[in-house]
C-alpha cells in the first residue's frame, strides 16, 4: 500500500534536471525544475555566471543536454577563458555543437526609441540558437542588462513575462541570473516572473573571513534544503555542501584498527579502535596529542591505508621534524602517496569553508583515516562553540558515511575542568582519550585515560604516557595507598619497594640461618645428653657387674674357706656362715 502510494506520488512529482554541480542536486533533491526557468540571484562576484555556465556545460557533457548561453555581459572568448581555469574546454564544446554562446551587446547610446516595439529580435535569436543545436538548457546572463538598454520599462516587463512563458512552452530548463537588489531579491524584480525556483548566492565577510553561501529561497512544487549552504569555487568548479542533509544512517563496521600504540590497543580490548569511529584526544598543552595522532598515522600508513592530515597549528615540516624526534618517520609515507598534509590557519577561512575544503579533499584523496589537529583552534576562530559543534557534527556524519576513521585532537585549558570544556563535542565522539599532566614532586608527567570508548571493552586504568625516542610508551602507574604516582615519584616508589623487598628477603635468610644454627645446637645438646645417658647406663651396668662378680667372688671365697675348715656341706650350702 505504502509503496504504491509512494510511486503514485512520485509520478506526480516535478521532474528535475540535474545540474551536475557538486552538492546542489542533493539539496534540491535532483536539480532545477525541468523545462522551467529558475532564477539565480546574487551580488557582483558571487558566482552567478559560473553557476549558470557550469549548469550548462555539465548538462552538455554529463547529461547529453546541449545548451544555449545568452551572454549580456561577457563575450564567448571571455567566458571560455573563465571556465578554462576550472578545466572546461568551451571552445571544443562549441565546435561540437553542444554549447552555443550568443553574446548580446546593447549600446544604449546607439539606440533611439520611437513608438511601439517588442523583443521579438531576442526571441528569434534565442529560438534560432535553441534550434541550431537542439538545446535543452538555456542561460540568460544577465538579462537585467536589458533594463539599461531600453527605456520603456513597461514594454520590457511585458516582454520579459512573455519571454519566460515562451521558455516554458519551449520546454527548456533555463537559468536566469539577476543582480541582487536592495529591497527585492533582484534589482529589477525578476523574481516576479521567474517564480518556480529562486536560488540566492551570497558572498559574506564575517569577522574578516569570506564565506560564500547558497540558499534555495523558493522551489515551487518540491521539497528542498532551506538552510544557507556554504559553497566553494575552485579548480574543480562550483561545489555546494549538502552536509545537513546527511542523516544518522551510517553503518557501524566491526573491524578494528590499531592505534599504533600496543599498550593502548590492549587497553581497548586488545584490538584498538573501531574502523569508521571518531576518536578525540584531548589534553593540555604539550601533553603529546600530536604525537599520539602521528603514531596513529604511522600505523595506518604501515597497513597501506591513506591518511589525510589537517594541521591547524603547525606546518607539515614542523610536525615531521618533531615526530622524527620520537622515532616516527612518517615523511616516507608522503613520498609513497599514502599521506597528505594540509596546513591552514583556522582564521584563513570561515568555519564552513574549512568543512567544504575538508570534504572536498576527502572526496579527492579517499583516505581511510583523517586527522584534525587540533579542533580547538577552529573554536577559537569561530568564537562560537555551537557553530563548531554543528560543523563537526556534519563533518563526522560525512566521515562516518564514508567509513573513515577520524582522530581529532583538542587542547584543553588544563586543570580540573579538562572533562568539561569538551562537552560540546565529546558527545559526538566514539572514543575519547584524555592525556593529563600530573604535577607532583616538582615535575610534570603525562597520564593517559580512556574516558570513553563506545562499543569497546576498555581499561579503566590510568597509564603513564611517555614519549621516548622510540615512540610512545604506556606504563602502569603506581596506584597503591590511595594515590597515583608517576615519573620519578613512581621510580622512587619502585626503588623503595625493591629495597623493602630486599630487606625482608635478607631478614628471612637471617632467620633461616638462625634456626638452622639453633637446630644444630639443640641436636648437639640432644646428642650430648644421650651420650651422658648411655655413659650412665654403662656405669650402672658396670656397677651391677662388679657387684655380681663381688658376690660371686664372696661366695667362692666362703666356700673356699668352708672347704678349708671342712665344714659340712649343709652349712656351707645354707651359706650364712653359721
Amino acid at each position, binding site marked *: 500500500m505504502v509503496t504504491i502510494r509512494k510511486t503514485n506520488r512520485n509520478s506526480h512529482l516535478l521532474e528535475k534536471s540535474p545540474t551536475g554541480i557538486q552538492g546542489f542536486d542533493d539539496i534540491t533533491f535532483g536539480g532545477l525544475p525541468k523545462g522551467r526557468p529558475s532564477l539565480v540571484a546574487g551580488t557582483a562576484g558571487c558566482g552567478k555566471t559560473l553557476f549558470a555556465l557550469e549548469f550548462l556545460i555539465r548538462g552538455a557533457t554529463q547529461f547529453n543536454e546541449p545548451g544555449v548561453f545568452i551572454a549580456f555581459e561577457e563575450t564567448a572568448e571571455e567566458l571560455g577563458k573563465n571556465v578554462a581555469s576550472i578545466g572546461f574546454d568551451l571552445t571544443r564544446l562549441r565546435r561540437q555543437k553542444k554549447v552555443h554562446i*550568443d553574446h*548580446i*551587446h*546593447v*549600446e544604449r547610446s*546607439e*539606440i*533611439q*526609441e*520611437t*513608438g*511601439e*516595439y*517588442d*523583443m*521579438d*529580435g*531576442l526571441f*528569434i*535569436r534565442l*529560438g*534560432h540558437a535553441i534550434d541550431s543545436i537542439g538545446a535543452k538548457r538555456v542561460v540568460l546572463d544577465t538579462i537585467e542588462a*536589458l533594463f539599461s*538598454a*531600453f527605456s520603456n520599462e513597461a514594454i520590457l516587463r511585458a516582454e520579459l513575462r512573455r519571454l519566460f512563458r515562451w521558455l516554458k512552452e519551449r520546454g527548456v530548463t533555463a537559468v536566469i541570473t539577476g543582480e541582487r537588489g536592495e529591497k527585492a531579491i533582484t534589482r529589477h524584480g525578476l523574481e516576479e516572473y521567474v517564480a518556480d525556483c529562486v536560488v540566492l548566492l551570497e558572498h559574506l565577510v564575517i569577522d574578516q573571513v569570506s564565506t560564500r553561501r547558497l540558499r534555495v529561497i523558493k522551489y515551487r512544487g518540491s521539497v528542498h534544503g532551506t538552510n544557507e549552504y556554504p559553497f566553494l569555487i575552485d579548480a574543480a568548479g562550483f561545489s555546494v555542501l549538502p552536509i545537513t542533509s546527511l542523516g544518522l544512517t551510517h553503518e557501524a563496521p566491526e573491524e578494528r584498527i590499531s592505534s599504533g600504540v600496543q599498550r593502548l590497543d590492549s587497553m581497548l580490548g586488545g584490538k584498538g579502535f573501531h574502523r569508521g569511529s571518531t576518536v578525540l584526544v584531548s589534553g593540555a598543552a604539550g601533553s603529546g596529542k600530536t604525537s599520539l595522532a602521528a603514531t596513529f598515522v604511522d600505523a595506518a600508513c604501515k597497513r597501506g591505508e591513506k591518511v589525510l592530515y589537517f594541521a591547524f597549528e603547525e606546518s607539515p615540516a614542523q610536525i615531521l621534524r618533531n615526530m622524527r624526534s620520537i622515532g616516527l618517520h612518517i615523511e616516507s609515507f608522503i613520498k609513497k602517496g599514502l599521506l597528505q598534509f594540509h596546513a591552514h590557519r583556522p582564521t584563513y577561512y570561515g568555519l564552513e569553508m574549512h568543512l567544504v575544503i575538508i570534504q572536498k579533499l576527502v572526496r579527492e584523496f579517499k583516505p581511510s583515516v583523517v586527522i584534525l589537529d587540533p579542533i580547538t583552534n577552529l573554536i577559537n576562530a569561530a568564537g562560537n562553540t555551537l557553530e563548531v559543534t554543528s560543523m563537526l557534527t556534519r563533518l563526522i556524519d560525512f566521515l562516518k558515511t564514508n567509513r573513515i576513521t577520524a582522530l581529532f585532537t583538542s587542547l584543553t585549558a588544563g586543570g580540573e575542568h579538562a572533562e568539561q570544556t569538551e562537552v560540546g563535542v565529546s558527545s559526538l565522539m566514539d572514543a575519547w582519550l584524555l592525556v593529563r599532566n600530573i604535577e607532583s614532586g616538582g615535575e610534570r608527567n603525562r597520564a593517559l585515560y580512556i574516558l570513553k570508548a563506545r562499543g569497546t571493552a576498555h581499561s579503566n586504568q590510568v597509564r603513564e604516557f611517555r614519549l621516548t625516542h622510540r615512540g610512545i610508551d604506556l606504563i602502569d602507574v603506581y596506584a597503591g595507598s590511595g594515590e597515583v604516582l608517576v615519573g620519578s615519584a613512581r621510580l622512587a616508589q619502585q626503588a623503595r619497594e625493591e629495597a623493602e623487598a630486599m630487606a625482608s628477603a635478607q631478614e628471612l635468610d637471617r632467620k633461616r640461618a638462625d634456626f638452622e644454627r639453633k637446630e644444630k645446637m639443640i641436636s648437639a645438646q640432644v646428642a650430648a645428653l644421650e651420650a651422658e645417658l648411655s655413659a650412665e647406663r654403662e656405669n650402672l651396668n658396670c656397677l651391677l657387674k662388679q657387684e655380681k662378680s663381688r658376690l660371686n667372688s664372696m661366695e667362692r671365697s666362703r666356700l673356699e674357706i668352708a672347704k678349708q675348715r671342712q665344714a659340712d656341706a649343709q652349712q656351707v650350702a645354707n651359706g650364712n656362715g653359721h
Partner: protein
Amino acid sequence: MKTRVLSNGKANGHSAMSLKLYVAGQSPKSLAAFANLKRVCDENCPGRYHIQVIDLLKNPQLAQGDQILALPTVVRNLPTPIRKIIGDLSNTEKLLVGLDLKRAVAA
C-alpha cells in the same frame, strides 16, 4: 532573404544613407515602421537613401550581426556612426534625430 531595395538611383556616394530595417514578418508594427521610414526618407532626403528590409523570421541568423533585440529596428550603417532606431517609427521627430536628419533640416 526577403529584401526590398528602394532607391531612385541618384544616390551620391558620400551623402547616401544605407538603412536596414529589421522586422518579424508582416506584423502591423513592421508595416507601420516601413511606411514611416519611407515617408520620412522621401520627405527629407529623396533619392539619397537605400533601405534593405530583413525579415528575421526567415533569416534569424542575421539578428546577431547588428545585435538586434527589439523589433522593428532600423540600423543606419552609413554614414557612420552606426545608429539604431527601434519601434514603429511613429514619432517622426525622434526618427529624424535618430537618422541625423533633424539637424540637417534645421540647418
